[in-house]
């Protein structure tokens, strides 16, 4: 393939203004400085994420927590032991007041009792439909 000659011999594209150099380099320097400030946190996160030892450490910590959670009895009631929402109240025996007075924990966790005296002492409201 032969190269056709340029139709305007002797003419050239103009050169940039000499002042452009300082303007461009100043703007580039400012951009680099701004990037160094805002990019520092991102670079730190990147470095931490890329650090293999640190990743292994995180993994070990998570596994250790899971093992502890499974092995150690925290003393809390298992979620499955509670009645389901709306599944009815369950009763707690209160030895000091005998079987006449039974405290009930509703599904929402509110205490109820059938004994009007105890209800009075505890400051509980009468259930709907019950005599005060």
């Amino acid at each position: 393939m032969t190269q056709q000659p340029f139709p305007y011999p002797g003419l050239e594209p103009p050169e940039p203004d000499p002042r452009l150099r300082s303007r461009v380099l100043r703007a580039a320097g400012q951009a680099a400085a701004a990037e160094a400030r805002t990019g520092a946190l991102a670079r730190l996160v990147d470095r931490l994420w890329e650090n293999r030892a640190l990743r292994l450490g995180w993994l070990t910590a998570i596994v250790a927590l899971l093992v502890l959670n499974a092995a150690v009895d925290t003393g809390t009631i298992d979620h499955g032991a509670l009645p389901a929402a709306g599944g009815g109240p369950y009763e707690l025996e209160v030895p000091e007041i005998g079987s006449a007075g039974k405290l009930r924990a509703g599904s929402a966790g509110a205490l109820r009792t059938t004994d009007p005296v105890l209800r009075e002492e505890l400051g509980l409201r009468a259930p709907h439909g019950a005599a005060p």
Partner: protein
Amino acid sequence: MTNVDPTPGTPAPAARPELHRLLADLAAGDLEALAAIYDLTACELYGLALWRCGSESEAEDAVQEVFVRLARKPPDPARICDPRAYLLAMARRAACDLVRRRRPAEPLTGLLLVAPATAPELPVDAATATRHLARLSAVQREAVYLRYFSGLSFAEIAEVAGVPTFTAASRCRTGIERLRALMGVET
């Protein structure tokens, strides 16, 4: 910048290894390398942006944008096979962004060609040549510029413009033919 007459397919004559080294320095955090990159490439980047935008102030903005981007996020030199084409592509993109931002399109305001101070009597003056160039499409002007003033091969022009090599060659050829036709009409 001079009008070059490259043999198609030959590598560009610019200091490619030098640019590679400077980009590596920049990636290593040496901001001084920017000044050297500017000295090596500014004329070419400015010329391309000027031919693309048609306005001197926008061409300057495009060159500034290239160097701001370089400073903000230096490219990995290992991933750049031709640093000159890479920088020209950056300038082209910056110029295209500026043109897109100032819609609707405005007529060319700057001289795209000038006569050197020492030039003898020329057959066509700069204003006429600029008027002719303004009749080309932006992509044709860009291809002509990269071919005749940057001395790039069609493959390299294609890389800069992000088009197939055949398209780059076609743009360049039709651009030159159109200029010749315009000259024939006027003379």
